[in-house]
């Protein structure tokens, strides 16, 4: 750790931190929008952690009281704002993640020493989506209830492989909702923190990626330091937070009625909407098949493309580019399909 260390000044006294350690050169491109997406995600997770902790003060993970507690939270002006920030940030995080993945792929930043970070990123992606999913259940409205019902169905299918953890059959002493809450506020955040720590450590070790065309010259021509990068990231983060706050205040969080057992009428949030038409084809197994396909495709990218050349128009990087650009197109098409197709019962 060179950023936090005891540094002696000229007078012989000791300072716990010397700002100059942050003045090392980073690529000029580091402050561009495409290159701060990872930092924005880090900030988003921080926002989620803080707002989530505040919401946790008032939320009750009990099926009989959960919806009511969400309503109480939403009825309070300040807590409605906090919940709005939590929800809007959760909505935007998948966009930032996919853009982050796309930028990395287009600039070939997954190659060489950064390969390990690509794989860590995939696990981060899955962890984040699990967090968003568990969060969507906690609000305990019809959509949340049905999402859990789908999830439990998968848990039953994979019960021998540990899926029973996500079913009501595990125990009668704790409702499934409280177990989901445990995962959302404790286990998954811990996993996330560990993964982010590893992800950031690798970045620190191998350095911030540069634009391909600047790869060999940026060390000589760089005009910005890491400290400048931090300032830029701070500015981006503040802007991001202001935008989220405006959204939260003018499109505030709402509480929906408690769920109805035995009905399947809602549609999922936008990020899980692509599952919806696929469930018409594969049934609830779409919940497993679809992300497995996406994960597999992302996983094989560094394995397919081991070339050092960083050019999205040449070599095997073209395959990687095709794969990641397929993702937003697919989400868009599947979401439109989900709006066009007739609703069907999947459970």
């Amino acid at each position, binding site marked *: 750790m060179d950023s936090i260390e005891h540094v002696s000044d000229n007078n012989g006294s000791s300072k716990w931190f010397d700002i100059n350690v942050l003045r090392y050169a980073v690529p000029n491109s580091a402050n561009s929008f*495409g290159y701060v997406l990872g930092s924005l995600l880090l900030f988003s997770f921080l926002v989620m952690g803080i707002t989530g902790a505040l919401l946790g003060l008032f939320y009750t993970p009990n099926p*009989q009281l959960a*919806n009511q507690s969400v309503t109480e939270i939403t009825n309070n*002006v*300040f807590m*409605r*704002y906090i919940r709005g920030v939590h929800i809007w940030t959760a*909505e935007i995080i*998948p*966009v930032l993640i*996919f*853009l982050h993945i*796309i*930028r990395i792929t*287009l600039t070939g930043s997954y190659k060489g020493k950064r390969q390990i970070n690509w794989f860590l990123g995939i696990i981060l992606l899955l962890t984040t989506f699990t967090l968003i999913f568990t969060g969507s259940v906690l609000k305990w*409205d*019809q959509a949340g209830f049905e999402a859990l019902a789908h999830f439990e169905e998968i848990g039953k299918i994979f019960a021998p492989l540990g899926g029973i953890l996500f079913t009501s059959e595990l125990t009668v002493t704790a409702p499934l909702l409280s177990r989901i809450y445990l995962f959302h506020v404790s286990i998954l955040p811990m996993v996330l923190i560990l993964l982010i720590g590893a992800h950031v450590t690798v970045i620190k070790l191998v350095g911030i990626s540069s*634009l391909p065309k600047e790869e060999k010259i940026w060390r000589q021509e760089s005009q*910005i330091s890491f400290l*400048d990068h931090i*300032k830029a990231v*701070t*500015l981006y983060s*503040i802007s991001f*937070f*202001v935008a989220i*706050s*405006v959204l939260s*205040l*003018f499109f*505030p969080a*709402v*509480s*929906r*009625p*408690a*769920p*109805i*057992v*035995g*009905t399947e*009428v*809602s*549609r999922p949030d*936008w*990020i899980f*909407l692509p599952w919806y038409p696929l469930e018409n084809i594969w049934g609830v197994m779409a919940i497993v098949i679809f992300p497995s396909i996406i994960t597999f495709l992302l996983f094989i990218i560094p394995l397919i493309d081991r070339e050092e050349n960083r050019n*999205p*128009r040449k070599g095997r990087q073209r395959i990687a*580019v095709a794969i990641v650009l397929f993702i*937003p*197109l697919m*989400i*868009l098409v599947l*979401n*439109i399909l*989900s*709006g066009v197709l*007739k*609703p069907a019962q999947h459970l």
Partner: protein
Amino acid sequence: MMKGSQLYKFGSLTFVLMLLMIFQPVQIVNGHGGASTSTYKGPMLLVPYTNSSPVIDGKINLKDFPEAGHFNITGFLDEVRISHNKTAMFVSVTTDGAEFAGVGVKNRALHKNTNPDSLFFVGGVNNGSVSTVKNGSYIQSVVLSHSDYDAPVVETSNRVSFVGAVNVVNDTRNYEFMIPLLPENYHRSSGVGSVTDILPELGALLDLVVIRGEGDNLLSTVVTKTQPIPVYLLRVGETAAQIEQIMANSPSWETILLWPSILFILSVYFVVKYEVVPIRRSN
């Protein structure tokens, strides 16, 4: 690159803006404004026709539905519009159903500059006694309305298509539906019967059943013996667009398209920015 002092100024300004936004007047947070009876702009809960809902001989007892929610909401009918050529039935199964239906209809009528004295509501069955209430003051529990687009749910007396009523037995909270009367131009039932008796006959006339009740399961059960009429449980303040949306049984397009579109557009931006496709630049 932004200088440190600029950053602090920006941060300070942002902080002040944040404080202003957080502690702004509540009505801005609530948004919309509008009629006093419909300041709440909550979401809707869709309760579909389903064969799996329990039927208890046409009677529904809230005690059988411990998960049933509770809605202390009055008046949303003033916000309701029904699409052209659509027929809807509005049902309230709460003890304050009169307030729900009556206030909403009355406000709607007043909003339309209709003389409330010309309103003629038939309905109201309370503990077995049929009552007729005029002047828009009260209608006990059910409004059956055949309405044109942008017309009041219940219009003046000469245009009311039909109005009915159900019974609310307050003491036992055993909500047995009774349809004591219907307008002559449709079908008249006499005596007491469950709503499941009357709905099959109304089924051909109805495009939508809107229910407001204390028991979320309630009216999804009611229609199990009928044709597959879409049944929706609404909370206060639903807008015309929302009503039409649920009638189409489809999520809003902004929900479907907002973030995927942003993601797609920014992806295209990256494709251009990082020169995935060769862009011929002039000069």
